[in-house]
């Protein structure tokens, strides 16, 4: 099994620039997306994997609310008290929904790496991510990833390229552990 685990503190820049091919999409990225694209590129550097390689990804429960920050700051700056849908829509950046939807990180990793195979998007759970890998429908290696964007803007991501059988009997199967724990060992 080949693994990559990256962690960036809240102040650190994530040096993903050189490995991003679809630069027009960067405006939709979160810090988790940047770190995931970089981790996948690092893991797959020198590898030749089929486009049909199964790819399963898990994001942690949300504790970072930057996707709402811009609107809150504009409401405060304008001295607006209380909720107003019309003003919210006027203030919300058009990219905001892409930063809320949980499947966006693996979608961008798939686009960057032209991955078209079996896939799944999991919330938080190491167990579900391992089960997805163990039941992959095609022979060969699977790509696994997990990310955790913390409240303070620090971010962790992990990726692995492995044969599904390597996850059999994994100690996190059937547990409540977050998926990022798979990659920390």
């Amino acid at each position, binding site marked *: 099994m080949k693994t990559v685990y990256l962690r960036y503190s809240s102040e650190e820049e994530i040096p993903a620039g050189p490995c991003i091919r679809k630069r027009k*999409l960067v405006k*939709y990225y979160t810090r988790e997306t940047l770190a995931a694209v970089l981790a996948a590129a690092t893991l797959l550097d020198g590898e030749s994997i089929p*486009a*049909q390689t199964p*790819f399963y990804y898990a*994001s942690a*429960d*949300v*504790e970072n*609310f930057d996707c*709402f*920050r811009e609107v*809150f*700051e504009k*409401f405060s700056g304008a001295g607006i*008290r*209380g*909720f*107003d*849908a*019309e*003003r*919210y*829509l006027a203030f*919300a950046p*058009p990219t*905001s*929904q892409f930063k*809320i*939807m*949980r*499947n*966006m990180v693996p*979608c*961008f990793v*798939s*686009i960057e*790496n*032209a*991955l*078209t*195979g*079996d*896939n*799944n*998007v*999991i*919330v*938080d*759970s190491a*167990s*579900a991510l391992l*089960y*997805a890998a*163990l*039941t992959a*429908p095609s022979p060969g290696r699977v790509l696994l990833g997990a990310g955790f964007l913390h*409240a303070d803007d620090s971010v962790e991501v992990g990726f692995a390229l492995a044969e599904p059988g390597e996850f059999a009997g994994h100690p996190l199967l*059937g547990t*409540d552990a977050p998926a990022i724990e798979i990659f920390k060992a």
Partner: protein
Amino acid sequence: MAVVITGFGARSPLGCSYEESLDTLRAGTPCVGDIRNIDTRGYQYTAAGEIRRDGEVVRTPRGVDRKTFFLDQALEELSAKTGFTRRYRPDELMLNIGSGVDYFDIESYFDSGASFPDGILRDGSYHQLAADMRPLAAKWHFDAGCHLFASACTASAQAIGLSWRLLRRGLAGAVVSGGADSMISHPAFLGFSVLGALSASSEPAPVKCRPCDLHSSGTVLGEASVAMMMEDSARVGDGQEILAEMVGYGCSMDAWSVTDPEPSGAAAAEAVRAALDEAGITPEQIDCIHLHGTGTVKCAPAEYNGLHRIFGDRLKDIPAYSMKGQVGHMIGSCTAVEMLGVVYSLQHQAVLPTLNFRTPHPDAPFRMVRDTPLHLPVRYILKMNSAFGGHNTALIFKKWER
């Protein structure tokens, strides 16, 4: 080994039980209306499929996360119907549910004047999905795991698909799968308003969503929490009805755009091919197709192109159906609620009419059923879904034959 579906607990615009849902499906009652559960002042789009009981929208107070609130009720109904907590040990029972974005009572948070972002989690206005589901899993004794899936409109298809794989490989004793999602909240409506995917039709709410129609202009959001029992047929008790057998699952990714489906449908076709291979059947054996059919402008042509790669010109002769014209689009739980239509077709040997479909689309000339159910022998059904972001899923179900 045969993986079978033996029961449902359902809360959706169709009704607040499995039986009520099937009655509403059969009657073809429109279930989309003007939103009752949030204040829609300031929104251009105000139609939605909200959960109803006896035709009336079920109201909940501000601050209640409707998806988990109604999932708990759906699990209670499923438990009463199938006795899953009695028939299986807790360490055999797994909960695999498709869902969506977190519930954020943004209205209360703004009104409270709390500083951003310190109070969001502390004041209870924000509901983290996994954290909220764990107590529910504990209450219903899913000790083998509580797993949540979030690939937008394919989330519950992926939950059901993984459940099928786990059961076939003996990695779970029994699985309660399905979906729980509610788009009836400000963050969901704000998000989809920005995306421009909602119906711009000036027609009344019940006819705003027109799947596969030439004049479709967008989808209508909805909500549903649907739990379904999946188990090995060998462990089904004598008195327990088997509603359907699941025989195939395929999944693929467009890797093309995050906003639009890949127009040639190449990846969607790969998902169907994989599902057919798993089922060990040919395309000629599929009797009807239950489409994703969102009512968005780009959905139907892409879905048609993908299916045409598999079925060729026979596609225009295969009866097709989309439930979204009747109930709207539940996003993370759309496949789960649409499973009620699949089971209806298998049980009643009929394809239901697609509500609001009037004019065939020249770029998606599906054989949509209109006005009255089409009765025909239905042995195999293909259930399609695809998602914002590029996921495609294909599920195949078979009429149960002992």
